[in-house]
């Protein structure tokens, strides 16, 4: 057995880096990051486009630049890192005993590490063709957008020449531009929903700039090609999202990129026994990003999929700070009063899912996503009896854009029963 760590961070992407730096800042000195890739930075390394860090650094950085800032910060600390290291299992310690982390690498072999706290920062993976059951043949040439991005930006290969993109998530949009710039013909971007899943700015600068059509309320209904993709059929869908016969368009192409959503990667979390949220596909967390297992925290895309890395960093710093506090003995009361956050009308999930009322400071960060596009709307926060606690206004809400509110700690402490967050749309624009 090796030395006892105070904190092991699983994953050296933006979440893990921010959590580790913050835990160091708060006084922990035996911190270890375990990263499965051969370098730190995670998915940011392949996101070579700019647009990262506007909130935190007031600059428009590329993904590698953003990662670089945190890697530099980390270099000024004594945080240890082990690269090319895959965590296979987390065994939670009983009754406050250290947690065990089983990991493996070519260099260090099979490692059983002990630690007082763990931060889960494994990120997410892309939904695949199987997850959405696209009909048709199974030729080569069907990639998730992120896999194609890695080939293109890091390995230096084009995955195809005539490309159709399914899904208008940001990675898909960004790849439409990248493939076009590198000489491919991107025929169209096809989106099942009546609205895009990506940021408006990406629709403008990645599709409109290059005259790439965006077909909303459309989907792929057939793929042809015994060996490589040869032809893709796209159909319009009705309000029930079922294809409408007679609306077929046929595209001759050799490549399909899928940008159809991300799923938090929680196999380790599940196997460790943490309570999961079916809606986020991540662990249920408290206000300080602690999971249902004391001393195991989670942050970033492993908890819920973010659209801005600045939010990931901020959330992860809270997790890192909370892990430090845990190690330093500030542990939540076993019988702390729990205030559930409930999803009201228009809200698909919230993070955190539960607030331990006595643990809250001045403000509680609450992140959530809405399940429909709205114009001007109010975010209503009500207690268990339906009394309004507070409200927030937004000019515009969309599922593709994560929302963030700050709830005053006092409000939470005084709330009777669970707190519900709901969307109340302005009727006829009469709202003030």
């Amino acid at each position, binding site marked *: 057995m090796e030395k006892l760590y105070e904190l092991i961070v699983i994953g050296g992407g933006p979440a893990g880096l921010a959590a580790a730096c913050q835990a160091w800042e708060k006084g922990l000195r035996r911190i270890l990051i375990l990263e499965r890739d051969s370098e730190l930075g995670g998915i940011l390394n392949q996101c070579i486009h700019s647009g990262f860090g506007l909130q935190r650094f007031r600059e428009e950085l590329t993904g590698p630049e953003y990662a670089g800032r945190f890697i530099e910060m980390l270099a000024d600390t004594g945080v240890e890192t082990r690269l090319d290291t895959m965590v296979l299992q987390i065994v939670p310690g009983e009754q406050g005993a250290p947690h065990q982390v089983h990991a*493996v690498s070519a260099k260090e072999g099979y490692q059983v590490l002990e630690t007082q706290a763990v931060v889960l920062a494994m990120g997410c993976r892309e939904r*695949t063709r*199987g997850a959405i059951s696209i009909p048709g043949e199974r030729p080569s040439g069907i990639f998730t957008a992120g896999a194609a991005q890695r080939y293109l930006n890091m390995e230096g290969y084009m995955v195809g020449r005539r490309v159709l993109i399914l899904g208008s998530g940001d990675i898909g949009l960004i790849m439409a531009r990248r493939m076009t710039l590198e000489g491919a013909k991107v025929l169209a971007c096809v989106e099942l929903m009546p609205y895009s899943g990506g940021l408006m700015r990406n629709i403008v600068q990645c599709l409109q700039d290059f005259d790439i059509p965006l077909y909303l309320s459309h989907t792929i209904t057939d793929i042809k090609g*015994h060996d490589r993709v040869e032809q893709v059929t796209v159909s319009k869908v009705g309000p029930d999202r079922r294809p409408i016969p007679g609306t077929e368009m046929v595209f001759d192409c050799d490549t399909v990129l899928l940008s159809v959503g991300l799923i938090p990667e929680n196999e380790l979390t599940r196997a460790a026994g943490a309570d999961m949220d079916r809606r986020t596909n991540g662990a249920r967390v408290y206000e300080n990003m602690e999971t249902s297992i004391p001393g195991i925290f989670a942050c970033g895309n492993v908890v819920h999929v973010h659209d801005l890395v600045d939010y990931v960093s901020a959330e992860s710093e809270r997790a890192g700070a909370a892990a430090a506090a845990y190690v330093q003995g500030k542990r939540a009361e076993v019988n702390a009063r729990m205030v559930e956050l409930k999803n009201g009308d228009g809200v698909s999930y919230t993070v955190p899912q539960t607030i331990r009322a006595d643990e809250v400071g001045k403000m509680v960060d609450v992140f959530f996503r809405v399940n429909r596009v709205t114009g001007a709307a109010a975010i209503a926060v009500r207690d268990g009896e339906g009394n309004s606690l507070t409200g927030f206004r937004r000019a515009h809400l969309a599922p593709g854009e994560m929302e963030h509110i700050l709830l005053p700690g006092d409000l939470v402490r005084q709330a009777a029963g669970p707190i519900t967050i709901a969307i109340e749309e302005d009727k006829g624009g009469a709202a003030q």
Partner: protein
Amino acid sequence: MYDVIIIGCGVTGAAAARRLARCRLKVAVLEAQNDVANGTTKANSAIIHAGYDPEPGTLMARLNVEGNRQMGPLCEELDVPFKRTGSLVLAFSAEQQPKLEELYRRGTANGVPGLQLFSGEQARQLEPGLSDEVTGALLAPSAGIVDPWGLALALIENAVTNGVELHRGCPVTAVREEKGVFVLTTPKGEFTARYVINAAGVDADKVRALLETPDFETKPSRGEYYLLDKTEGKRVSRVIFQCPGPEGKGVRVAPTVHGNLLAGPNAEPVEDRRDLGTTADALDFVRRRAMQSVPGLDLRQNIRNFSGIRANTGRGDFVIEASKAHPHWLDLAGICSPGLSSAPAIADYAAELLEKAGLTMEEKPGFDPRRPAVPRFRELDPEQRAGLIQKDPRFGRVICRCETVTEGEIVAALHSPVPACSINGIKRRCNAGMGRCQGGFCGPRVQEIIARELGVPMTDVLMDQDGTWVLACETKTGKEAH
């Protein structure tokens, strides 16, 4: 000149090759595709049937029960994942009850051991996931699940290790018989043999037609499947059938040896033997039928749909016979279900028929029946893992995160007796890319390892069969595949 040439290296051809490898014979296997087991063997229900379904007296009945009996020891010898899970056939109404009884009688006549009829309640006690609508069930304890691709690979690897030659990428394009010797034309030159086994799967009729007008015709029937994530893998512990009806043996729900859950297939006649597509309608049918048996099934956990082509011939039985005009030509055709279950017995029967036709079958003393598989890192305990990494650090580098497959396993698969040559070849040999991310993360890394180990550029590495290119060219230089 070869004593025997086997055309086709699916599970049937591979089993025949391994059977003949026991004898002092010069044997070659010619496979049209760039890898073995790339036809029906790679896309089927992965079930070892008990043998109550075929009509008593048919080849199917005899060879299925015999093949099933051999499967345990065979998979042990070849280190192939196989589980004797047992199976249940479900009835959903009083009208279907006689069907179960008929299967029971047939099975008993075929020599299937241990068959038992249960009430719906008893069936649910065995399998709590079953629907409340189930009124009765037939239990066949000898049914099981296997890795069909792994079985075929192990058979041919063991055959190759024992002296059989394998030529992949070697389709037979013409056949003639000259003075009792078959001359087979391929892109790799002419091969000559005294005996030929035609194990060309769905194309067996076309191969036979190279010699003479065949007396059977493949009527391809496609079946579509859902493969669900391991989170659904424990939904049932046995193979769950429905009463066979006009739509074939019906949709089944079964665990796989890798811990996933498989649901399917439907049955639809297709014109194009290479059309391995899926359709929304067929998958919808599979979904409804699977949910009828196991209502709790979460099909959102789907990680892959696929389809396979059954080599039906309309004869209702396997076509295992010598040509009348060319008695040294043996067809192993129409090997549809239960072909996988029957494979070892088909091989024995083929050897018997060859011997009858005049081939001398003398046992070879040095035959080694065992094939050690590449170590499966994910199945080892921490101590074994540590030991393996110490021996070869490449076993410490996990390439496929979902299935925990290491670089060591991938490298081993690239240098095995029948080495992988494509990304899917790696997937089938060591599971990399088989998991929930479907190769999204590990695909590029596997490709890099293939390129490195085989000394070829990345752009030359294929996904699967010829024509399945992955990368169009390098960026910046535009350098294409060779």
